[in-house]
């Protein structure tokens, strides 16, 4: 590979790469605002100016103050070039830290802050703002301008998800490019110029495509804020865990930002993965986190309709075992979940095998539209994993389950998860059966028709993996602790098996995972 030198360090590059890209790949950040690895080059922020020290120097005329003469005299200074647009070439010597470049960085930074409002205390970006970071690193001087800053519109509603503040905006155009290049919808553009510059909506439009939150995600400052996250949390209190989006079968990688003081998740952010989601996520995926603390089932319940009441954890397991024992194994339906991890499904499939139940079904969500950007047609994160866990047994649908229940072929049900495309009314026939056990993190149609519902941990609370629609297993780690007395589903299933007098042959996740393919193990 050809090489060039950046700040004394040799960097190899693929022909066609820019200096910025090659450095970025090596983990070096040349300061920048408008450049984003997933977007086209705009080269308008001028923060990434570097000096090509080798080769013929381009000189730029300037006036410098001469102390002796007491006046300005014409002279020259080296012409700097934006690293984001400068094609890497063999053996060039680039500096991003020499005095010329430092002066340029400080000046650009000072210029960007010239009319910036004093908003840090009320700005959601504070704490992860590039203006703050680069001020500290590259400027570190106090204000010289004494006049009133230019005022522009604040709190402009761009759409149902995004609010725009023109005063904070540095006109990097990242949001425009995200709409153009990722969402393929030219809904944002820029008007005026100089200090009247402003991002505007296309006439008659709202920012309402499926990737609007990406505009906020790429905004290097606090100009675009998300309606959902706005004023909810301060980022320095948040910690971040690694997750996988449960929104659809694409399995976008996420940063799960949560406040450890309250055990509450505040937002998801895309985690870069070139093979899956690159740098992006869709709005629906970004909002899946809200599911976590809405409609949770926190106590086991028993009984149906008005007679439903909470029971103790142990009592619930005993009750479930008792009800399942009463059902003949050949008439026991086991419902796997396309919303649960491969591990949870595997544990349930093992329970089915141990009991000798061979009627396996799959519950999955529906009512979703895919696209050819990121969204898969299937809005269940783990249909492939659940199918794998079933180990070759054909999984029938919930419709089949209802038919089987009505025909008498099914007299008892163990169901994993709350999620099903079917509504409560459709599942109503199951209420005729006495032994319907639901293992679920949330309330929903299945738990509603169950005679015993036992809570299990939600996706942010467990160790596990999903298999996405490209058959890639992706593991994630627990971010929060589950509610008191609530275990991951695989553990609860193992305990239930114990009550039924069966040993499923695993004690922990590691021994459970031995039943999975090597690929899943490799993903751990």
């Amino acid at each position, binding site marked *: 590979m050809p090489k060039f030198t950046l700040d004394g360090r040799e960097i190899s590059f693929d022909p066609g790469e820019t200096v910025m890209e090659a450095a970025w790949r090596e983990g070096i950040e040349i300061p920048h605002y408008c450049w984003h690895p997933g977007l086209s080059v705009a080269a308008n922020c001028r923060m990434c100016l570097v000096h090509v020290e080798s080769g013929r120097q381009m000189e730029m005329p300037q006036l410098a103050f001469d102390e002796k003469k007491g006046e300005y005299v014409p002279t020259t200074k080296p012409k700097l070039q934006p690293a984001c647009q400068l094609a890497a070439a063999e053996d060039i010597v680039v500096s991003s830290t020499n005095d010329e470049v430092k002066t340029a960085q400080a000046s650009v930074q000072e210029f960007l*802050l010239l009319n910036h409002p004093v908003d840090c205390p009320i700005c959601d970006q504070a704490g992860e703002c590039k203006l703050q970071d680069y001020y*500290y690193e590259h400027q570190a001087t106090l*204000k010289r301008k004494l006049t009133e800053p230019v005022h522009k519109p604040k709190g402009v509603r761009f759409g149902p998800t995004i609010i725009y503040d023109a005063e904070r905006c540095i006109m990097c155009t990242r949001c425009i490019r995200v709409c153009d290049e990722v969402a393929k919808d030219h809904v944002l553009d820029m008007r005026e110029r100089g200090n009247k510059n402003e991002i505007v909506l296309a006439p008659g439009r709202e920012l309402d495509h499926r990737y609007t939150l990406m505009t906020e995600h790429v905004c290097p400052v606090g100009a675009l804020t998300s309606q959902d996250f706005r004023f909810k949390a301060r980022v320095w209190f948040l910690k971040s865990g690694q997750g996988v989006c449960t929104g659809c079968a694409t399995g976008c990688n996420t940063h799960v930002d949560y406040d450890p003081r309250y055990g509450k998740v505040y937002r998801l952010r895309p985690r870069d993965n070139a093979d899956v989601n690159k740098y992006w996520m869709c709005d629906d995926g970004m909002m899946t986190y809200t599911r976590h603390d809405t409609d949770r089932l926190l106590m086991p319940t028993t009984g149906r309709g008005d007679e439903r009441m909470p029971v103790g954890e142990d009592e619930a397991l005993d009750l479930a075992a008792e009800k399942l024992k009463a059902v003949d194994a050949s008439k026991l339906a086991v419902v796997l979940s396309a919303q649960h991890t491969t591990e949870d499904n595997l544990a349930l499939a093992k329970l089915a095998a141990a009991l000798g139940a061979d009627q396996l079904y799959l519950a999955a969500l529906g009512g979703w539209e895919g696209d050819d950007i990121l969204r898969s047609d299937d809005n269940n994160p783990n249909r492939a994993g659940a199918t794998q866990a079933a180990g070759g047994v054909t999984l029938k649908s919930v419709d089949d389950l209802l038919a089987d229940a009505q025909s008498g072929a099914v007299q008892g049900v163990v169901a994993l998860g709350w999620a099903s495309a079917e509504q409560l009314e459709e599942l109503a026939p199951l209420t005729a059966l006495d032994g319907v056990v639901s293992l679920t993190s949330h309330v929903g149609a299945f738990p509603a028709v169950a005679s015993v519902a036992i809570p299990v941990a939600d996706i942010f609370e467990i160790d596990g993996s999903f298999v996405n629609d490209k058959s890639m297993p992706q593991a994630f780690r627990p971010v929060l602790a589950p509610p008191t007395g609530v275990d991951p589903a695989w553990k609860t299933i193992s305990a239930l098996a114990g009550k039924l007098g069966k040993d499923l042959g695993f004690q922990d996740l590691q021994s459970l995972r031995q039943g999975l393919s090597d690929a899943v193990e490799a993903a751990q």
Partner: protein
Amino acid sequence: MLNNVGWSLAVEKLLQIEVPERCQYYRVILGELSRIADHFTCNGASAMELGAFTPFLWLLKVRDWVWDILERETGARMTHSFGRIGGMAAPPTASFKDDVRQLIPEVHKVVKETEIMLLRNRIFLDRMQGVGVLTKEQALSYGVTGPVARSTGIPYDVRKDHPYMVYDRFDFDVPIGEDGDNWDRFMVRLEEIRQSVRIIEQAIEQMPDDGPINVDDPRIVYPDKDEVYTTIEATIAHFKLVMEGLRTPKGEVYSFTEGGNGELGFHIVSDGSGTPYRVRVRPPCWYNLAASREMLLGGMIADIIPTFGSVNMIGGECDR
């Protein structure tokens, strides 16, 4: 105050910066005032513990005068948190130099009165002389510093041997003892008060009346509050300093100063972030207290009182 400045100097060494000259003098004067207060308190308490209550009150009034000045300067009499990395929390008040100048003759007077009250008192002499002896060798092997070490004849004073700030510009002596007993420790402290006054007298004359107190770098020193409230640059600087801390270069330093009781050292390891990776304090009293075993062994139980008093142990420095 000596601790405040000692810590600031350690971080400043890591940052490779030096505070403005005016601030260095200011720090020296406030530090020496603190030393005077310390030594008067220790010596006064030594006398009180031997039954002489009047000298205690007599000496402590100087501490109050010193504290009056410190209160005017810093806002607190005792627990002043006034040192800042890169400077001080506030510039000297307009009356600072006059206040200190007025104090100096009073200090001399009280030192003289102390000598008259105690140095020919038979009981005091008997309880102090030849009691609690620490030899030079023992002092060295225990790592003892400060007045306790100097009383054994070791002329080690960080201000003289490794001058920091502007101490190399002052003409002052390092008093030493011979026997390392309670008496020598008492006398060394008494003489050090005179030497501190000498330093203050010179510093007051040399200290510029104008000029900055803090280094001119918003990455190190908080900008003025009115700028923080009105300009974005100062807001960001303030935010970064509060939320992420002052970032220092990667590396480690050991920085040491002459505290009231000896060498006060700070060892800092930095990983380049806003919080230290490791900080280790070398407090003088930790070593001085360890050596008190040698002073007490073979003596009388009653001698623990004056001996322990003359070690001038500061509890916080031994809590580790």
